[in-house]
């Protein structure tokens, strides 16, 4: 396969059969087909004119260049087009087929920390502000229209862009934007309702009424909640039969008036979003963990050297950092040229890592994920979104498991062999893992007096179990602690 000038791959293969792994269905305007590491969109003929004229416009090129919009081309290959139309839209043989730049590790709002949802909301409003002067509008405003490329959000749902009637002052997606961006952020900020809790249950975010019920009397009058939550919640209790006309389209007397209203409403939404912005200095039980460990750990430089050497020997590639905490080693790998997915169960530390990665423009995508309880496929028939392990298996050349396996062993009671087995499934090549012995102070802290349950655990057992899946290339003791670092390669099955 070769890279085209646009950075998209040309599918050249003797085997021309398209093998779809996923086909979307919700959008009446088109279907997305994921096949063989490519992302195609088959577009209904009714929407073709808008899409093709937008793709040909200078605005489209500008948005792609600014990395706000996914890079897209029209598929000309007749055979490929026909196959994709047969798969996705057999009733429309004249459908338009597009290929989007494929984002290899899709992520979903329930895996994002609040900072990333906020950034996705800002991107949506930025895009709307760029589209309005061109008489275009987003017909929906959902975080599922956005994926992350490293720490940067990019808008992927081209079919959301449609022409607007110039005298229409109503943005139909206004309520959806509030439900899917502002309400979840407010619920997280003021009531501690985590985004993963919200989006795993409610695909379309939270209604103002739901957040209203969480609020006490004083909180209902809080400026951040008054116009986003309280007033809409109260208005929704009015007799809907009286106001059926609210769902009718509205035409203003002039295009200038309609634009004035829309621009000011967008500004209002931006203020509301800003009021829901997560605070930079949030606290959690894990936020100070790395710092405390670093203070205790005089051995951090030696650990850093070990990991740096391993990554340098291996070369840049895709790295998964499990239990990343504030991402010290994720950032290290990214600075060495790796593309990093960093996961941790704590949204506060993941949010802090995202801020750093975005600031320093490093290729780190941090996600709120508990490796011992990863997300499963969700949506209709559990196929609309893919589970974390499904996306992660075999996707990384290197996996880091530093200062994490003792938490998995003790807190989650995962057997050691199964931890190593999972590591072997996730990496295609290298594993850098830290063995923490039962007499380690942190280990003893988390066993809460049940030390005897882990008397069996020792270095020899660890190495013996590892050898079923890996070849140990190098090992070093971490300073004067009992901990050991291992650089392992996946054993090749004959």
């Amino acid at each position: 396969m070769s890279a085209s000038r646009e950075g998209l791959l040309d599918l050249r293969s003797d085997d021309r059969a398209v093998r779809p792994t996923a086909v979307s269905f919700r959008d009446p305007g088109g279907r997305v087909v994921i096949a063989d590491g490519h992302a195609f969109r088959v577009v209904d003929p009714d929407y073709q004119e808008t899409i093709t004229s937008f793709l040909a416009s200078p605005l489209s090129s500008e948005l792609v260049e600014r990395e706000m919009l996914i890079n897209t081309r029209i598929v000309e290959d007749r055979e490929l087009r026909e196959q994709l139309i047969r798969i996705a839209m057999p009733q429309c043989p004249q459908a338009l087929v597009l290929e989007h730049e494929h984002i290899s590790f899709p992520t979903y709002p329930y895996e994002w920390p609040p900072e990333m949802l906020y950034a996705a909301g800002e991107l949506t409003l930025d895009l709307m502000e760029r589209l309005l002067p061109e008489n275009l509008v987003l017909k929906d405003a959902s975080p599922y229209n956005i994926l992350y490329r490293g720490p940067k959000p990019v808008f992927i749902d081209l079919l959301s862009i449609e022409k607007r009637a110039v005298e229409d002052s109503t943005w139909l997606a206004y309520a959806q934007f509030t439900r899917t961006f502002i309400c979840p952020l407010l619920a997280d900020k003021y009531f501690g309702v985590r985004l993963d809790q919200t989006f795993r249950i409610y695909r379309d975010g939270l209604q103002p009424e739901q957040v209203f019920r969480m609020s006490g009397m004083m909180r209902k009058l809080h400026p951040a909640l008054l116009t986003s939550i309280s007033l809409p919640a109260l208005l929704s209790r009015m007799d809907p039969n009286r106001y059926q006309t609210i769902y009718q389209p509205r035409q203003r007397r002039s295009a200038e008036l309609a634009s004035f209203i829309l621009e000011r409403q967008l500004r209002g939404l931006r203020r509301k979003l800003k009021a829901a912005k997560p605070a930079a200095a949030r606290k959690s039980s894990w936020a100070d963990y790395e710092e405390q460990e670093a203070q205790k750990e005089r051995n951090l430089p030696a650990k850093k050297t070990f990991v740096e050497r391993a990554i340098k020997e291996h070369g840049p590639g895709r790295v998964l950092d499990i239990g990343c905490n504030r991402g010290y080693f994720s950032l290290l790998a990214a600075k060495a040229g790796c593309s990093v997915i960093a996961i941790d169960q704590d949204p506060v530390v993941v949010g802090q890592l995202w801020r750093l990665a975005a600031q320093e423009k490093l290729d780190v995508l941090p996600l709120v994920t508990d490796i011992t309880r990863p997300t499963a496929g969700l949506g209709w028939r559990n196929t609309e979104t893919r589970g974390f392990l499904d996306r992660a298996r075999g996707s990384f050349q290197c996996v880091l498991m530093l200062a994490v396996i003792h938490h998995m062993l003790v807190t989650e009671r995962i057997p050691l062999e199964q931890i190593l087995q999972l590591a072997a499934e996730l990496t295609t090549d290298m594993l850098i893992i830290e063995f923490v012995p039962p007499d380690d102070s942190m280990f003893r802290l988390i066993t809460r007096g049940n030390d005897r349950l882990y008397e069996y655990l020792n270095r020899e057992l660890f190495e013996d179990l590892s050898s079923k899946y890996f070849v140990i290339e190098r090992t070093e003791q971490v300073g004067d602690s009992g901990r050991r670092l291992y650089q392992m390669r996946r054993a090749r099955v004959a």
Partner: protein
Amino acid sequence: MVSLVFLHGSVHPGLALLFYADPGSGMLIWQLATAAALGLLFYARTFLRKIRLLRQTRALKQNPEQPAAER
């Protein structure tokens, strides 16, 4: 106009605030209410601009030779 209907409804003795909340309609009503308020703002601004322009035109007619800074 929806905002006027709402105001009227808020003082009407027969107003029924139901326990049933129609999800989504509240946000749309709020959106339309703000649009109505913004519409009034737009017309007020346009009206004030016209008044300002009229005053400038009259001042120009009365003192055609006076430099603009001194008017």
